[in-house]
């Protein structure tokens, strides 16, 4: 009996864990009635590459994802294509698929063995797909369940200690108790400290702008685009006319082909600014100035933003927590002798002369005080 209870417990535990952590797949899209079901079905099968002999290596869906994905994909997803060609004619679509203009696209599309009627079927499917949109992955919510299960375990242990008394080895119970409580505390602590923080945040942007292509491959200086970094608190998300400096000519992307750059062209021509997703979200009650750090402090961009030039999609590498700020302010030496502003700090100059201190950090001039950032 005793054996059974502990065994059943562990089975339940493991099973539920597996169940909770596995992602739940989405339902299939419903089909419309305008066209015959078979046509749509065939279009869908074509798009997913399920029809023999049409694709050599990759099918449409292999590059143009139909499901929301976490990973970075250079190619436009299925919905983007669908919505782009929804209002356009079949001829345009056929032309785009079969006679690709951009280099990246032609490499892949030339391996297709599609005829015009195949493409028509694919468009049928895409027009249908436009209304359903990308299949969403349901969020994985294992942490909450883990927390609740630990709670169940804890209550079971407590009940067993006081009422059931089924487990004779009290030490086992004690260990389970301590581990469960500890684990819960750890979860709470982690969740609590990460409240409002988003380290490793890496959202998809409306335009797949790559810092690798711009900053590394083409060696464009950060300040060419982020123009206000040396004189304002904000570094400046470049406005479209800065993009236009080059992209009035450059229309074919190294990795992305024409589709991404065409968004910039559209924005400029139609006069609609691009709505970027903010990656680094500092809380509103914190004052931060890029100019202070970049021009006065001569801090490299990478110190906070990491190896941006290696990122196709920008990711937040620092947690932007107060501890992280303070630590840097404690350790970082300021430009004390180069800037006449600091002449007023007579005591610090004296201390440097006498050798009492060997360097002046931001902290020594008050860089760790509340009102330097919070007001």
């Amino acid at each position, binding site marked *: 009996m005793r054996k059974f209870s502990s065994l059943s417990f562990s089975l339940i535990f493991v099973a539920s864990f597996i169940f909770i952590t596995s992602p739940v797949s989405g339902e299939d899209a419903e089909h419309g009635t305008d066209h015959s079901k078979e046509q749509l079905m065939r279009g869908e099968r074509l798009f997913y590459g399920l029809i023999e002999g049409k694709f050599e290596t990759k099918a449409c869906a292999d590059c143009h994802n139909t499901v929301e994905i976490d990973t970075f994909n250079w190619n436009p997803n299925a919905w983007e294509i669908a919505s782009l060609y929804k209002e356009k004619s079949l001829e345009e679509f056929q032309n785009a698929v079969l006679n690709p203009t951009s280099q990246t696209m032609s490499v892949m599309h030339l391996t297709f063995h599609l005829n015009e009627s195949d493409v028509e079927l694919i468009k049928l499917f895409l027009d249908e797909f436009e209304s359903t949109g990308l299949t969403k992955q349901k969020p994985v919510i294992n942490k909450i369940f883990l927390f609740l299960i630990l709670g169940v375990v804890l209550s079971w242990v407590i009940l067993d200690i006081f009422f059931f008394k089924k487990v004779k080895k009290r030490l086992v119970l004690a260990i389970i108790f301590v581990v469960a409580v500890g684990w819960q505390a750890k979860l709470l602590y982690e969740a609590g400290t990460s409240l409002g923080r988003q380290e490793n945040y890496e959202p998809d942007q409306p335009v797949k702008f790559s810092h690798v292509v711009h900053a590394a491959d083409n060696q464009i200086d950060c300040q060419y685009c982020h123009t206000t970094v040396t*004189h304002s608190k904000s570094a*400046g998300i470049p406005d479209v006319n800065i993009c236009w400096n080059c992209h009035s000519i450059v229309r074919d992307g190294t990795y992305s082909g024409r589709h991404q750059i065409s968004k910039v062209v559209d924005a400029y021509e139609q006069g609609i600014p691009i709505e970027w*997703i903010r990656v680094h979200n500092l809380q509103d009650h914190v004052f931060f100035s890029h100019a202070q750090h970049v021009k006065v402090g001569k801090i490299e961009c990478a110190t906070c933003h990491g190896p941006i030039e290696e990122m196709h999609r920008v990711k937040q590498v620092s947690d932007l927590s107060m501890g992280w700020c303070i630590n840097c302010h404690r350790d970082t030496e300021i430009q004390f002798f180069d800037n006449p502003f600091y002449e007023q*700090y007579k005591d610090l100059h004296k201390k440097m002369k006498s050798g009492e201190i060997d360097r002046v950090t931001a902290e020594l001039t008050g860089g760790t005080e509340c*009102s*330097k950032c919070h007001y």
Partner: protein
Amino acid sequence: MEKQWRSIEEYKYGRNREEERGTEALHKNALLDVLDSKVVDASGSRRDFLKLFGFSVASAAVVSSCEKPVQKAIPYLIKPEEIIPGKANYYASTFFDGTEYCSVLVKVRDGRPIKIEGNHQSPVSRGGTSARVQASVLNLYDDARLKEPVLSGNVISWEDVDRWVINKLGEGGHTVLVTPTNISPSTSEVLRNFIQVYPNTQWIQYDEVSASGIRDAHFDLFGAGVIPGFHFDRAEYILSFDADFLGTWIAPVEFARDYASTREVTTAHPHMSKHIQVESALSMTGSNADERIPVTPQESALILGYIYNAVAAASGFPFISVPPSVISADRFVTDLLENREKSLVVSGSNDPEIQKLVAGINYMLGNYNTTLDLKKTIQLKRGSDQEFQEFIVSLEQGEVDNLILANVNPVYSLGGFEAMKKAGFTAYIGSAQNETSQACQLICPDHHFLEAWGDAEPVRGSYSLQQPCIHPLFNSRAFQDSLLKGAKKERTYDELIRFWWENVIAPREAESNENWWERTLQAGFFNSGQEPMAASESYSAPEVVLNPVESDLVLTLYTSVGLNDGRYANNPWLQELPDPVSKVCWDNYLSVSLADADKLGLEDEGVVSMDGIEVPVLIQPGQAKGTVSLALGYGRTKAGKVGDKLGVNAFRWVIGMDGYRAYTNDRIKMEVTGKTYPLARTQTHHTMEGRPIVRETTLEEFREDPSAGNEFHLETEAHHQTLYPEAKFDGYHWGMVVDQNKCTGCNNCVVSCIAENNIAVVGKEEVKKRRIMHWMRIDRYFSDHPDNPKVFHQPLMCQHCDNAPCENVCPVSATMHSNEGLNQVAYVRCIGTKYCINNCPYRVRRFNWYKYIKNDKFDFNQNSDLSRLVLNPDVTVRERGVVEKCTLCVQRIQEKKLEAKLEGRVLKDGEIQPACVQSCPSGALVFGNMNDPESKVSKLKMQERNYYLLEQLHTLPSVGYLTKVRNTEAEPGKSPDSRTAEPAGEEQHG
């Protein structure tokens, strides 16, 4: 020093009534209502909050596994060249609201004007602003603004408006256009264009509060109907009769700076002007006078008459006949005759007979061309009462077909305007709704001054430009454009103004014309450099008939420093601004003298019925016996959600006297009702327990001993001993000095602080509970007998003590000292124990009892998306349950430090100006680095007049105060020793 007191109760009983009632009970009530779920915002009461607290810790962790909301960053498509995101731009512009002129700099952040600053280069306003100017930026984001053109209740397009108006005016009927005083040369040109097209048009300028008497008196005496330029800076002897020239009279900002420049007393220059104020109500100006004579308006006319005859006798001019005056004015005559050519007599009366006397006295004393100026005359207040009176008569007789009212509110300020219905067609042009706009058939929204082009000539020969700082928020159109369209002109007003400036105002010399427009626009003003011709050279002695009526009780009406004539009634910043003298906000009240109150059996905060209208009573020390006073500007009915139904409309008591609007009324009937009406008054809050707060001396004593009145400072300095290590500040140690001799109590700094620091408006009920949030207040103390007390104004903000009592009681270290001597508060760390509030001897800390933003219970400026646009993005909006206080505008300190660092240079003295300092019209506040012995603030602190508030507590404040010096004879028997009278009573803090 004499005992200072703050209210009548304190004078009589030593304590305030509120305190008598028991502070404890008050606090209990105050605490209980925080639990009242009716008042608390939607998120539930504090008790609910505590119940939920336990759950929230766990749920916070659970919730945290959700993503943060996605934030977008949308850059400009094509960024305008001068805009740098995150940095403010300043544009020079002009403030003129029909009554008051100011050259201003508008701080525009990310496309939104958020703050008005004074333009220090302007030769007219010289960097000063008034409370009204500071608050005007909020009117831009007022919900009560007119948003669309409306015809008989239907929204129509501007094309339809024009078609309709041209049709109507084309019929050729008699058109009358009523505007406030117009000082814009280009607008005059627009009006000329309009009248050319419609010759049957009459243009009338109408001032709610008129100065027609001065103009007409000057016409009689000099043959030119002008208001002369006043040079208070050149006057050594100022004799003012009921003129609140520092508060609201004609050009208070300009006058305050001039006046304050004569009140600067140093050991090197131990001189100051002498200012005598003869008045019935205790005005802000009267509270600053060296000597104040409270008399009835009739009596002050008689005094003037007496002085006139005495001066005429001494100067060989003909006499006039006046009844004898009760009060002897001989010493004023002696002083005036001694100060020929450097004295100044002014009167706030609108009676041309009195103004003739004033002008005559000034002329006989030779003051014209010295303290008075007939060349650089003041162009404000151009309305003629006579002309307006004739217009009303013709309107009543049905002779007016079309009536266009632009930015005037006669329906309110005439106490009803039934005659308006006689006009066939009525149109209103203005930026915000009011009683008049509601009564008109056609409503044409005008721009706010921050959205519009414009210009001004406030003083003859001094021009000023106004430029738009934001794209119009609503479907409004400039008043001038409406007229130009109505006159079927192709040219728009912005084209016209530039043409007018470049061709008419611009200097003739060819070389200085290059980029002249751009340069002038950048500076905001232009001085022609040519001395204008004197308006008149001739003088003819006046014939004055003084017939003062005998009356037991006279009502005098005045404009309040906050609301002016009521045009700012919907501005919550100004409604919550305590009156400089009575410290009452959100209401007007009948000021009654102590003697009259005893005689009539009136209680403080009782209610009387005056001609059938119920008015609350305030017993006002210094009110002349036989007079009662009431502020204009209240009792609006169509001002908007904030301004409606507050106080009573006092314009109903404004009467016509021989065609002039008289602001005194001796025909009132008053009855005691027995009701009471509690007023929201702030001076009795935040008591400092009767310690020697304001130190004063007389000029004579000061000349003998510069530290006169300030002996206690030396004494405490000598006894300073401490166990704590001495606070040392490397680099910067910020400090401030307040010159109590220069401060006039005008409240400009208070509103400036509100605008800069996103300070919440809490409303009348909360003010009554002592929960006003102002970081900066101006304390007003009285001393002497309440019949004619001495008044003191003391600006008070956080003292930034180096040995701060608030810091060491905070259990979570949310408040602490910075290495630059600032006492800082980290709002996010504060848990709201309020220990710091209780331990602050200066009562400068404020607690957020509620969430004041996005809360329908506090339906003021922070409860609408539109008016939240005024918030300063550099200052956190505080949450419920945290303590806040003055930071000495740390955001400005940091900004200027960074600017210096970026440019790699030393920070200059005077470069950092906290909001209160920046626009102080009298220059009473000085901020700077106390570590630099050469800084202005260090030098002022070296003066013998400098002391610190409650310095005996060894709090080591960073804010110094300079003793108040009065230019009076030292009064024997009043030794400066009463400071020892520190109350021994128990200290209960408010």
